[in-house]
């Protein structure tokens, strides 16, 4: 196992201990620690670290890192954190840390949960401003946008995806999606919009970012080319 781009393994362990507040190293938490954190956590999970932790911690990890609950993530996490704060474990005498008080992680977990909520909400609610796309200097932006709406519109019926495209200047985009139009109107900031009704009213308020659309278009194109 090598960690050429991130430094030596011992340094990585030092960083990990710093993250866990064990204070075994002289390294200070800094901006690059964010990258180390991702690498180290993935490494430890891949090695089976989760088999050694309690069910509460495992559930919490899955909720925060793996599952997608943009609306009620915080509500789902809160009872786990309450139980977590009551857990504590004594370690063996060989360990430099005599006892693990899990409650010390709760404030950091609350902040992490807030970040995850924001990240998941960002994935769910994104308004795509057509003028933003055309202003970035892409001459064929309109064609690409139209085709992406056209192709992803078909996928919407299968996946229950809803798309909201704000269209300020070019009504042609409407033509491609006429069959999927549920409503049109004016947003509070003056941009006209078209809301694509897709499959389910339950997910009506979910809007996917362009990267998701791109991924869908890409998958769709691959299917078409087969």
């Amino acid at each position, binding site marked *: 196992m090598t960690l050429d781009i991130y430094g030596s393994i011992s340094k990585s362990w030092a960083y990990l201990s710093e993250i866990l507040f064990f204070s075994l190293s002289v390294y200070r938490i800094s*901006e690059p620690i*964010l990258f180390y954190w991702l690498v180290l956590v993935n490494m430890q999970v891949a090695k089976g670290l989760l088999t050694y932790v309690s069910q509460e911690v495992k559930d919490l990890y899955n909720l925060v890192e793996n599952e997608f609950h943009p*609306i*009620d*993530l*915080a*509500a789902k996490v*809160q009872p786990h954190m309450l139980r977590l704060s009551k857990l504590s474990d004594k370690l063996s005498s060989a360990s430099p840390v005599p006892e693990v008080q899990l409650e010390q992680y709760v404030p950091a977990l*609350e*902040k992490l*949960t*807030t*970040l995850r*909520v*924001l*990240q998941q*909400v*960002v994935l769910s*609610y*994104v*308004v*795509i*401003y057509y003028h*933003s*796309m055309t*202003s*970035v*200097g*892409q001459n*064929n*932006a309109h064609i*690409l946008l139209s*085709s*992406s709406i056209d192709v992803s519109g078909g996928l919407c019926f299968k996946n229950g995806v809803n798309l909201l495209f704000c269209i300020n200047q070019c009504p042609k985009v409407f033509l491609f999606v006429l069959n999927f139009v549920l409503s049109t109107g004016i947003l*509070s*900031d003056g941009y006209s919009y078209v809301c694509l009704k897709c499959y389910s009213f339950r997910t009506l308020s979910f809007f996917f*970012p*362009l*990267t998701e659309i*791109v991924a869908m*278009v*890409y998958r769709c*194109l691959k299917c078409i080319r087969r």
Partner: protein
Amino acid sequence: MKISNLTNMIGFFDFSVVEKLTVDAVKYNFVQVKVDHLKGVVSFGSQVSIWAARFGLLISMLTP
């Protein structure tokens, strides 16, 4: 999204704390969020630079 909705979703903190965390998250490029106190809304991911990058990705995917 309305600020009140976001605050209700995150039960741990007041919006002032959420706002500070959001500023940090934006600073480190975790999310793209704009808070509009005048309208009382939070809008997500509308920076032109982000869309430019994503459109570059779109073009590279559509024209491999």
